């Protein structure tokens, strides 16, 4: 049967995905979070990163000695999460994920700029800030010091800490908006964005228009930072607007149709950093997973996508 064939094929996926989702590891992290006193949260920390690759067997680094935490061959045994100043970051090694983020394939010590914070293991996630000096540090990413990318040193291991999403320990359903995410990427005006492009589902290739014209970018920036008009909402509210009232037996079809409408939009900054938005033109929503938010697209923004990117 076809579904059995798919289920069988699923059984052969890469080991890294199976290990990443190991239920035992998930329950261990949950136990750690229950013990934490200053992050009051009894549920699992979640990180909705854009297209972040997970661990590869051989780490691309000059340093191979083991650091702290659960390491095998100098590599953390599971995707490590960092909570730092209202945001979650994920340790990232995979070359394709680094490339999608606009980062170099090889993480070397000279990418570490100014010291930012000391970290310790523990809390709701794997690393949290501490005032004590430890062998785990966050540094600015020297080529582009922003809140979107840091370099993490754990012992002798260096890796990228990539911004996943904003996070509020006392309110796990909280969301923010695209304007806030621009600040993470050090975008303070339109000139800080160099291109806006439509990519394939894998975020590897530009498949549609790539907008580099400053006036078009300025208009996009203006339309997406006007918080009085570009209404943002969380997942629950979005779900009720789009899917409430659809009978249960029709839900799969409705979700299929929604998924079919997806267009991936890549924003690239002057520093070469990249992040991705999800646009659903027929539903009128622009999703920003970094912000855990959906934005109702204004008529002007819809027109911008139609005119500049031919997305209808």
């Amino acid at each position: 049967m076809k579904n059995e064939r798919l289920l069988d094929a699923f059984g052969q996926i890469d080991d890294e995905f199976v290990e990443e989702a190991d239920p035992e590891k998930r329950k261990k992290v949950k136990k750690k979070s229950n013990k934490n006193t200053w992050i009051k949260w009894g549920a699992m920390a979640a990180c909705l990163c854009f297209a972040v690759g997970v661990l590869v067997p051989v780490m691309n680094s000059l340093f191979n000695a083991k650091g702290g935490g659960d390491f095998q061959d100098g590599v953390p045994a599971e995707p490590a999460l960092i909570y730092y100043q209202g945001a979650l970051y994920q340790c990232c090694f995979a070359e394709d994920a680094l490339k999608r983020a606009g980062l170099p394939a090889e993480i070397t010590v000279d990418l570490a700029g100014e010291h930012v914070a000391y970290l310790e293991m523990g809390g709701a996630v794997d690393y949290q800030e501490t005032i004590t000096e430890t062998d785990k540090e966050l540094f600015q990413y020297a080529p582009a010091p922003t809140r979107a990318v840091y370099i993490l040193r754990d012992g002798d291991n260096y890796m990228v800490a990539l911004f996943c999403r904003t996070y509020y320990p006392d309110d796990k359903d909280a969301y923010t908006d695209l304007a806030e995410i621009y600040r993470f990427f050090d975008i303070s005006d339109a000139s800080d964005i160099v291109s806006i492009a439509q990519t394939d589902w894998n975020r590897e290739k530009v498949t549609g228009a790539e907008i580099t014209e400053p006036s078009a970018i300025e208009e996009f920036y203006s339309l997406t930072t006007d918080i009085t008009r570009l209404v943002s909402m969380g997942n629950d509210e979005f779900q009720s607007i789009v899917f409430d009232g659809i009978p249960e037996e029709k839900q799969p079809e409705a979700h299929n149709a929604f998924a079919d409408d997806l267009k991936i939009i890549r924003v690239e900054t002057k520093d070469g950093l990249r992040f991705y938005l999800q646009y659903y033109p027929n539903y009128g929503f622009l999703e920003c997973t970094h912000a855990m938010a959906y934005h109702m697209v204004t008529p002007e923004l819809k027109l911008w996508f139609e005119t500049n990117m031919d997305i209808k």
Partner: protein
Amino acid sequence: MDDRQIIELYNERSEAAISETADKYGRYCHYVAYNILYNEQDSEECVNDTWFRAWNTIPPQQPNRLSTFLGKITRNLALDKYKYYNREKRGGGQTALVLDELNECLPAMGSTEQAVNDRLLVEVLNSFLRSLPAEKRQIFVRRYWYLSAVSEIAEDFGISESNVKVILLRTTSKLKKVLEKEGIVL
């Protein structure tokens, strides 16, 4: 005992390899089998067969990740047993539910698609999984590799069951789109 040491026991043909493996991964493999078979005795059989197979394949195999190496053996054995016994009518198993859900991401037949071999299908699955945000990927793998119950996934990720269902629905929809785009016919 770390994995390297356990594998060395297999290489030396020491019987302690089995006991060490069972000690470290017995619970993990049992979890994988039980989600598929929902029967203690059958699950235990699968787990024991897993040790037997590990003994017969290491060496020459030298798995990089012993847990997933064993988990995959157990999963395959359990699915084979499930198909043979057709146990979906027996209370509460996840396998029938998961198979129903996977029906939703079977690509529609087209005029130009070619039948695809399993290797290509797995490549496409890997590429698709790599493109997903980490949490969604983990939820997807929990459901379709580990066959974990939706309620358990919700508990472990600290989200509601309906949220899990929505994530699964949307992700299977995306997978369907990808399979169709790649011209894959099952």
